[in-house]
């Protein structure tokens, strides 16, 4: 073995590593680091006239709930709307956080795509979104009865995600 095998081997290692990483599918999701931690305190104004606003206290009465981060301008939110309604029909309480939205747009979206929410808070500065480590809309968090975040679903809810969320709610004590 000659000594120059060492740098050549190192070089080949780097090329191999880079090639392998390049061939891997890219994961754009940045998962929240807040799983297992309590919701930060917040109190949001109602996003439109039809429903009350939302605060962290609404999650602390012993019943696990879903916190849905969404917006009327978000197209994947239209795709997940029927699945949120399916969850509501199974007795799940869903509290919405509307990101940078207008009351008339929120009302219009709910009239067109259905309203699965019991409360919707208006998060005009994305403060709650940043506070719970959410990357954007749509995202759904499972919150246990003490206001602790136990699970994060990133992206729109598909039909196959409904049983998963129900199971996570059960684990949280529903």
């Amino acid at each position, binding site marked *: 073995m000659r000594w120059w095998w060492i740098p050549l081997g190192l070089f080949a290692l780097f090329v191999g590593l880079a090639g392998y990483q390049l061939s891997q599918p890219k994961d*754009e999701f*940045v*998962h*929240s*680091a*807040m799983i297992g931690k309590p919701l930060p305190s917040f109190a949001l104004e109602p996003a439109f006239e039809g429903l009350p606003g939302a605060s962290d206290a609404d999650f602390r009465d012993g019943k696990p709930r879903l916190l849905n981060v969404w917006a009327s*301008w*978000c*197209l*994947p939110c*239209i*795709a997940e709307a029927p699945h949120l309604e399916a969850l509501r029909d199974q007795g799940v309480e869903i509290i919405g956080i509307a990101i*940078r*939205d*207008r009351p008339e747009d929120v009302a219009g979206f709910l009239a067109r795509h259905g309203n699965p929410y019991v409360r919707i808070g208006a998060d*005009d*500065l*994305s*403060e709650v*979104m*940043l*506070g*719970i*480590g959410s*990357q*954007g809309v749509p995202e759904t968090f499972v919150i246990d009865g003490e206001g602790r975040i136990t699970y994060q679903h990133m992206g*729109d809810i*598909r*039909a196959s995600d409904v049983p998963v969320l129900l199971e996570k709610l059960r684990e949280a004590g529903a």
Partner: protein
Amino acid sequence: MRGLLVLLAALFAAPLIAQQTMPPAPYAYRQLDDPAQEAAAMKLMHTLRCLKCQSQSIADSDAPMAGDMRHQVRSRIAAGEDPEAIRAWLIERYGDYVSYEPKVSATTWPLFVAPVALLLVAGLVLWRRLRLRKTT
């Protein structure tokens, strides 16, 4: 069919976000009045990752979320918070990935050790060569 719909939706999602009519957060594009505070905010914002456009810092990005993160940084600095405390607040929520300034930890220590080790090896090789040349 649903998959196709979602794909179609994703295609239109980006331009729609660009068309959002909500005004940006107050401090998304407005500088702080105190130049020293603005400089501290700028320095921090250049080292925080935009989570929507992940190769940019929040100082460089025009994504609405980056604007909201700039608003957080500026309003917290205006309230007297330490820049590193704001970074720590974000790391607590999004993990180390949100910061462009790596800290020594169980997974990142090779980043810091490798250059020193390489320098030591190079120095050793150089030293031996020079010594060999002198003796011959």
